[in-house]
């Protein structure tokens, strides 16, 4: 268990790249744990046969599992989750068991004390057999607004 260090506005500069966080590799057990904790019991994330019947070679991570990890990175970059004012993500590709999730962020603007951050999470891994996936591709793009203590 940790407590992130307090971050103040004067520690941030425009265009600053935040420290990359790498989570995973994700496993099917992670998908099951997330299903139980979140209530997202769509079988496409847990049931191999069902996933295939829906045209997917195997199960894949819930989008919100990946978004939860990216929000985790944002919380840790800025000294805790309580500084978030807005968080938005767009899902661009699926994330598979065995993939690592690489979370990165850049300070885009600071206006009236609100820090605007551009976010990205990439999947890195071989991907399932039968799909000829790149080893490393963007799976989520997003943005956050942060208000820090004075």
């Amino acid at each position: 268990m940790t407590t992130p260090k307090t971050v103040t506005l004067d520690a941030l500069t425009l265009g600053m790249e935040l420290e990359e966080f790498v989570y995973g590799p994700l496993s099917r057990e992670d998908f099951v744990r997330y299903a139980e904790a979140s209530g997202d019991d769509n079988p496409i994330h847990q049931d191999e046969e069902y996933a295939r019947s829906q045209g997917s070679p195997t199960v894949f991570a819930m989008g919100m599992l990946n978004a939860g990890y990216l929000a985790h990175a944002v919380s840790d970059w800025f000294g805790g989750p309580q500084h978030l004012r807005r968080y938005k993500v767009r899902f661009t590709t699926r994330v598979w068991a065995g993939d690592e999730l690489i979370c990165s962020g850049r300070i885009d603007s600071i206006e009236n004390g609100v820090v605007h951050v551009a976010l990205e999470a990439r999947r890195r891994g071989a991907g399932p057999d039968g799909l000829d996936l790149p080893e490393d591709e963007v799976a989520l793009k997003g943005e956050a607004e942060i208000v820090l203590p004075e």
Partner: protein
Amino acid sequence: MAESEITFDLPVTRETVADFALAVGEDNRVFFDPEEARRQGFPDVVAPPTFTVTQIFCVPRDERERRLGANLDYGRVLHGEQEFVYNRLPVAGEVLTGTMRIAKDFTKEGKRGGSMRFVTYESVFTDADGAEVLRAYYTLIETSKDPGS
């Protein structure tokens, strides 16, 4: 006849917060340790930023579909976008009131013939005093039956 909105209660407990936090790999004490949360000025442990997705426990997909009547074919539906706007994070021990409605529903023609329908569900969460805590926008994309070629 579809309803215009669904109202539900979302209880926030230490246990559901800890389970959710662990499921997204969190290790910040503020999600797990009431003493640490109080030291930081919160009444109890804080829920992670995406915690209110657990509203699906209160209003499962089939119920949402039946009552709000978006008439989506889930075999062709993807989760396209998600957004949260915060006044504060929920804390354990409170029961949020959620109000869900369809905020947007439109169809975009694709460049290669197929079309995509975007449906955005908005959920507004308020606390016991009636003050807004946060709101969530959940956007689904329904791809067309005949995606063109």
